[in-house]
Structures are given as C-alpha cells and as structure tokens.
C-alpha cells in the first residue's frame, strides 16, 4: 500500500471511478441542470463562432451588458472545436472536477507525510456530496475553480521552492480569470497571517511577500475588469444586485445539519476535531493555513456573504484535508494499543462509515440534481418558441428559466438569474411575480404591456417558484391564446393592450 506506484494506480482508479459515476449520472439526462448551464453554453458557442464572449447581449432583459471572467467558457469553447457542445458540457467539467482527487492527495500527503491517509482524503474529496451534485450536470465553473483553488493551496504550501512560486502566480492568474471566488483564498491568507501572529509562530518572509502580491494583483485585476460593476453598484456589488425579496433565501442560513449532509459526516466531524486540537494544543504552520481557510469560509457563510454552495464546497475540501490528519493519528494510535489485532475490523467499520456518510449522500444528491434538469417538455416548448416566433419577440418566464429563453429559444427574456447591472431589479422581479400571481386580467395585461411581453411560458418550475397551480387571470380567449401545451408546460400568447 505504501509504495508510490501502487498509490498512483489506486488514485487513478479513484479518479476513473469518480469520473465514471459522474458521467453515468450526467448522461442520464439529455439536458442540463439549471438555467446557468445554458448561459455558459450560449457563451461557449458564441466564443467558438466569434472568438469572443457575449458582453453586450440583446436578448437578456431585452438588452443588457455582462461583465464576467470568461476563462472557463474559453476552455469549453476549445473542446467545442472538436466535440459537440452537449458532450463538452457533460464531459469536460466532470474530468476537471474529478482531478480534485490528485490535488487533495498531494496536499494531504504534504501535511501528513502519510500516503494512506492522503489516499483516503482524496477518496473523500471525490465524493463530497455538495461538490459532486453541483458540478456533475451543471456546466458550472466551480468544476474548474475548486481544483484550481486546491492547487493554489498546494503551491502555497511549497512556496519555499522557487518553481512553486511561478506555478502559484500562474494558477492565481488563471483563477482570477475564471471566477471571483479567489477572494475567499485571499481573505483566508489574511486570517492565516493573524493566526500565525497570535500563535507566536515565526514570520515567513516568502509567504508574506506572496500574500501581499496576491492581494495587490487580485485587487488590481478586479478594479480593471469590474470597474463598471463597482461604479454601478458600489459596495453592494457583494450582493450581486439580487432582488431583495429573494436575497434572504439566496444566501440561506447554513445549519449544521445542512453542512453534515452536504459535506459528509466523517470529514466534517474529523475536520472540526482537527481544528480544535491544532488550534488549542498543537502549533503547526501548515494546519493554521487550513484553519484560517475554514474559519474565513465559515464566518462568511454565517454572515451570508458567500453563496452557500460555494462556501460548503470549499469547506468540504478543507475538512477532507484536515480529516487526513485525524486518520493518520487514529490508526497510528490503534497500532500502539492492544486493539492492534482488531485493526482490520476498525478499518472495515471506517470504510462502511465513509460509504454511508459520504458516498451514499453524494450519489443521492447528484441523482436529485440530475432529476431536476430541464424537462423534455420545457425543451419542446422552447423549440416551439424558436420556430414559431419572430426574432424580437419578448417571452416571459420565471428567473430560473430566463437563460433558457435566451439560449435555447434565442428570444428576449424579461428577467433571468444574472441580475448585475440591471437598474430597478426589485421592481422588475416583483412585476414578473405580479404577472404570474395576478388575480385579474387588467393587472396582468398592464404589466405584460410594460415589458412588451408577447408570450408567457408556464412550466412546473414556474409553479414551484411562485407557489401557484394555474394562471388565474387566463380565462379570456380574447387577451390570451393558448398556443402550446404538453404535460403541464404551456405557452400563452398575450394579445391585449391597455
């Protein structure tokens, strides 16, 4: 077990198994989960065709500006040169996401110097429930962000070696161009410096230099790239202009129970134990880095300043790394006691526990995620809209389906889930809700006229979103014509003007 080659073979097997499971689930559905996946796909296709992402979009909100770091879309666009987009969207993010196995192994091996513990940490990392469910069928940039962030941590752990400094700088640049979540890493580094000072550990000049550079570099690129966003929203940009009526639910408070089910019981409990032990009893520079990371993300989750899914994914990986420490200590301890002869039984119990608390929830959540992918009825409705409406037609949908309108039907939407740079978003969001929940035709028609809506899409997602069974105002064939309907997915044409 201890030989290097054997471990690498096992790691390759875990990678292949993780990828196999992911692809099995991903290909269960012909569609993707969530509207954001279709936003990415639209951007990827546009990059492949023109070489540039859509920054000025004539369809979303009837015309708006996007500002986002586009590296993930470029990576997918590269593969889209050889493979169809559906295959790219299902295959590439899963391959990248599964690579976390190797990186977590490297980190855990670096801090424990024990290959077995590192191996088990990497197994757990592959099956963190929230990570698996959020990156399997969603074409999410998190699939690239998390492995990159983990590699950034690994490079930082080896910052004394010059080649890792250059790797660190390269990965930092790639991360900044992929997702804004690198800010969590930088905040963690600040907390790490404070922890080092509080614990009285000696200063490491190289680390301080790299941290300072990282902060300056990040701030500069953010100011350059997102200048327009900062000027438009000011400090409130942190809340991404999310309508106030959904803000409370968007940054939902994260309970311990949610954390247990989404991260996995064993890594969470063992990780927390490791934090308490290393925080109060043992002083260790490397572990302080992970404690700082866990502390920062935990605090941001507590104050609802980070998206729960992202926070939990990072926390999951941090806890998995910390778990390796506990694994090492536990089995070392057992070896020294009279329970040594029951070592295999302990190991068996350990495997069963891991399987039941990490693997099973991971499979369950991933299955749920794939089940909630866009239904074939909705795709048929979108296809109908594309074929039977004019290019400048405005279609109303609930925000989660907005990107489907622009990406699949290729028509203008009224609202989608990218709220940045949209003025009066609260009013718009409330108006859309007001249309779907209207009791009277006059109110609905007035609001539909306000946004120049030609068609309404009414799906099971809309029903769930607004807690309604049917559109109450549609009883007048003069104002609303039912033009499409399959299994609870309907399209109505709006005909009246007030």
């Amino acid at each position, binding site marked *: 077990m201890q030989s290097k080659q054997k471990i690498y073979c096992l790691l390759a097997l875990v990678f292949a198994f993780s990828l196999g499971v992911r692809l099995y689930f991903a290909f269960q559905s012909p569609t993707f989960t969530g509207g954001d996946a279709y936003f990415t796909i639209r951007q990827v296709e546009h990059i492949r065709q023109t070489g540039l992402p859509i920054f000025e979009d004539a369809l979303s909100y009837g015309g708006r500006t996007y500002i986002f770091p586009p590296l993930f879309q470029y990576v997918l666009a590269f593969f889209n040169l050889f493979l169809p987009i559906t295959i790219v969207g299902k295959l590439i993010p899963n391959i990248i996401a599964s690579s976390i196995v190797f990186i977590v192994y490297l980190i855990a091996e670096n801090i424990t110097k024990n290959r077995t513990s590192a191996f088990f940490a990497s197994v757990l990392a592959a099956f963190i429930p929230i990570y698996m469910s959020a990156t399997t069928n969603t074409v999410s940039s998190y699939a690239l962000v998390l492995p990159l962030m983990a590699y950034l941590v690994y490079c930082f752990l080896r910052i004394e070696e010059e080649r890792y400094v250059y790797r660190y700088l390269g990965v930092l640049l790639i991360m900044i161009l992929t997702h804004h979540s690198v800010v969590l890493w930088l905040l963690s580094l600040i907390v790490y410096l404070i922890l080092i000072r509080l614990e009285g550990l000696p200063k490491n000049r190289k680390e301080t230099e790299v941290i300072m550079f990282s902060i*300056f570099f990040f701030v500069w690129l953010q100011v350059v790239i997102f200048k327009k966003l900062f000027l438009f929203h000011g400090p409130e940009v942190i809340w991404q202009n999310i309508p106030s009526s959904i803000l409370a639910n968007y940054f939902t408070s994260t309970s311990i129970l949610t954390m247990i089910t989404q991260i996995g019981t064993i890594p969470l409990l063992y990780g927390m134990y490791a934090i308490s032990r290393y925080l109060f009893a043992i002083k260790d520079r490397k572990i302080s880095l992970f404690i700082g990371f866990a502390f920062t993300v935990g605090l941001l989750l507590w104050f609802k300043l980070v998206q729960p899914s992202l926070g939990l994914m990072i926390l999951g990986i941090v806890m998995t790394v910390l778990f390796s420490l506990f694994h090492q200590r536990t089995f070392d301890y057992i070896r020294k006691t009279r329970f040594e002869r029951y070592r295999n039984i302990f190991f068996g119990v350990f495997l069963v526990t891991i399987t039941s608390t990490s693997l099973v929830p991971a499979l369950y959540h991933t299955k749920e995620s794939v089940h909630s992918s866009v239904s074939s009825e909705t795709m048929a409705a979108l296809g109908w809209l594309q074929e039977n409406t004019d290019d400048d037609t405005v279609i109303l949908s609930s925000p989660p389906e907005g990107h489907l309108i622009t990406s699949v039907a290729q028509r203008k939407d009224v609202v989608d889930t990218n709220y940045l740079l949209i003025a009066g978003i609260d009013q718009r969001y409330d108006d859309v809700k007001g249309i779907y929940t209207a009791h009277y035709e006059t109110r609905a028609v007035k609001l539909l006229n306000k946004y120049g809506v030609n068609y309404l899409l009414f799906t099971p997602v809309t029903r769930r979103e607004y807690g309604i069974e049917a559109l109450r105002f549609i009883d007048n064939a003069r104002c609303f014509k039912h033009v499409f309907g399959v299994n609870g997915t309907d399209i109505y044409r709006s005909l009246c003007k007030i």
Partner: protein
Amino acid sequence: MTMRKGNRAYQGLKEQKLLLAILLIGMAILVVPYLARVISGDTALVGEQSYLHARMAEYAVRGISQDDLLDGGRTFSYTTYHYVLGLRGKLLGIEKASMVLPAVLGVLSLFFAYLLLKRLGVDGKTRFLILLPLVLSPAFIYTYTVSNPHAFAIMLTLLGFLCFADDERHIRILGAVAFCLAAFSQPFNAALIIGLLLIYTITTTMRKNEAIIIIAILVLIVAIHHPASFATRYETIPGDVMREIISDLGGKIGFGVFYSILTIIGFFASWKQKSLHVGVYVAVAALLASYPLLGNAASMYLNFFAAYFVGIGLVRLQSTRWEFIVIRNLTFLIIICGLLFSSISYLDRLSHAPVTKEMGDGLGWLAEHSLGDETVLSHPSYGYAIEYLAGRKVMLDSLFSSIPDAERRRLDMDTLFYTVNLEEAEGILDRYDIEYILIDKAMKEQLVWEEPDQGLLYLLPGSETFKNVYANDEVEIWKVG
C-alpha cells in the same frame, strides 16, 4: 570639503528637478479634465459646485449678498475664495477664472507641501513618494479641478504652516496672515488650523506664545465673521459613505483602492514610531470625525494626511528586504498600475461629469425661452447650473444649509417626483410656482427614478397639464400648463 560641496550641489540640483517634475505632473493632470472637454467641444465647467462659486464670486465683488435665484430667496455667506475668484474673474471672465484658479492653487499647494515636508525633516525620497501618489489621487484631482473654497483654504493652511515653522519672524507673520485668510473661509478651517497649531506646539514645544496669539486671533475672526454655521456643505451628501470614500466604487471625492491599501500599510508602518506620528493620528481622527459636518469635502483635507501614510507605506515596501525579486518587481509594477488606473479612470469620469454639453444646450434654451422670474424643477444637484447658466429660479439646490425650509422642500420634491396623483402634483407645482420641469438621462437612470414610467414620468406624457417643449439626446424640458 570641495567634494562634499559638490555632492550637496548635486543633491540640490536633483531635488530641484524632483520638485519641478512633481509640479509639472501636477499641472498636467489638473489640465486633463478641461482639455478632454474642450477637445470634445464642451466648454462647460466641471462639477456641480463650480457654478455656485462662480455666481457667488460675481455677487461678492459686486457687493450683493441676497440671492433671488432660489424660490423664496436666501443670503450668501462669502469666503476669501469668492473674492479672489471674483477679482480674477474681472480679468479673465468668471468661467475661465473658475477653470484656471483651482489648478493654480493645486500647483501652489504641491509646492508648499513639498517645502513643508522638507522643513519637517522628511527626506527627499519620502517626499517624492508622498507627493507623487498625492498628485495622482482622485481627491486631489477633484479639489483642484472643480472650483471650490476648500482648495484655497488648504493652500493657505499649508503656506501658513510653512511660514510658521520658519526661523524668520517676518515670515512667521506672513504665516499668521495666511492662517487668518484661511479662517475667513469657514469656522471649520479655523478649528483645523487651531488643532494643528496645538498639535505642532505640543509635540515640538516650539513657539507656544506665537501659537496662542494666532489662536486668539482666529477665535476672534470666527466670532465676528461666522456667527452661525460651522461648516458649509456645498454638495448633496450621499447616504453611502463607503461608496463616497472609495473613488473606484463611484465616490466623487474619494481615494483609489490602491491608495487606501497603501495608506493602511503606511499607517501600520508608522506605528513603530508612534510617538513621532501622534499628531498625524490625532489630525486624521479629527478629520474622520468631521465627516458628518463637512461631508465628502473632509476627504480633501484628509487626502494630504493619507498621502503621508502612502509615502511611508511605499518607503517601507521599497526598503524591505525581499526574498523573491520577481515578486517585488511585479508588486511595484502593480502598485504603479493600480495608482495610475484609479487616476485615469477618475479623470475620464470627471471629464464626462455634469454639466454635459447637452445639459448646457438645454439650459441655454431655457434661458432664451422662459421668463426671468419663472421657477424650474429638477434634481437638486442641477440647481446651481440652472441658476447660473439659465439664470432661473429653482425649487431646491444643494446648498441646503442656506435654505430655511430645505427639509420641507425636499419632502415636497420627493412627493412630486414619485406621485402618480395628478392633483397632488399640481398642488405642489402651484405652491412653488414651478413653470418648467427639467429631466435628464441620469435622473431617469437611478438618480431619481428606476423605472421608465415611475411617478412623475408616468404623469408627464399622459396629462394636458404638461407639454414637452424641448428635447435633445439627454435632456427634456416640460412646460407646466
């Protein structure tokens, strides 16, 4: 001996070049906003308050204190700056003087700041690293581009301290005169000078008697000249302080992100010699505390202290032994890029700031087609421009402290902007005799409304009470029937 003399001469020459370079950079930067406007065919003054001070300067030299261009009237309280601007205006014309004078004051302030730092024993490198970021800072650019009395008061305060620290008695008397002229601006300026004088005499234990005499004179000036307000706010104070302090987040008189980070680094670096810097800490704390009174204008004063910390921060970063030379070089490159980016971005914003050419055209139309005593409704931040360029009364402008019933007017204005009840709107329009409504693109895009048919925007096209009499790409004017 000869060699030491030669070194000193070389050092002197180097310092002269350094000073010249900073003054030239300062001048070049302060010219950019107007130059950019002139190139795009726009000769309007930059900034809301430029128009108020241009009008106040004209009134001041003509001896008029009553302002009739606000519905209900008010009395102006002039500062030294208004008289100086008015007198220069007689030579150049008031608008040209409003463009030139702030830039001249900016260069003079830089010159005095350089000499003051030298007199206080700050070495050449640190002086350069303090003044260069200062010149590039958005708060400095605003202070010395947009015509405002604080620019003059800051220059006088710097001159005052430069002279006060001199060994020659007659030069110190000149310093006292500068302090007195600065104190004529606002009681706040007198308080600031008194505070700084106290800090200086306590920390250096020098010239206590002279300081006491100057303080007594300043108190007397305040008692005679300013019986009422402590600090006048010439612009609307935004609710979001964080946004106003950081220029990269949209702040009008703010600091760049890199400037702020370097200030924090410099602050911590200075902590090692905290007894030396205690005076600066007290001054910074006092200026931060003055934000509620002075509004964002406090940043103009705070900027000079922030620049000091920026300089210390840069010296600290530069003098630290770096393990990775590549990281050091990249860090400094990014710092330079960051400081430059904030400045360039701000200069661009300032050169496109109101009043735009379209607004100028709209106000020109209003001046020609409306009667002299008619009142115009618009956003308070356009009040000064309407009064100056169109010569018409407004319901409300940003000089709230001079308007006795400003709060009621503001409430009425809000009601008028957001009501969809025509009768209610007509009632308010009648109360203030409003004949014209001026709306621009910015008002429709979040300055007032967020929706295209919100409040008054809903009433305007659908009612016979209002008639659209003028429109260009940005501005529309409605006549109240």
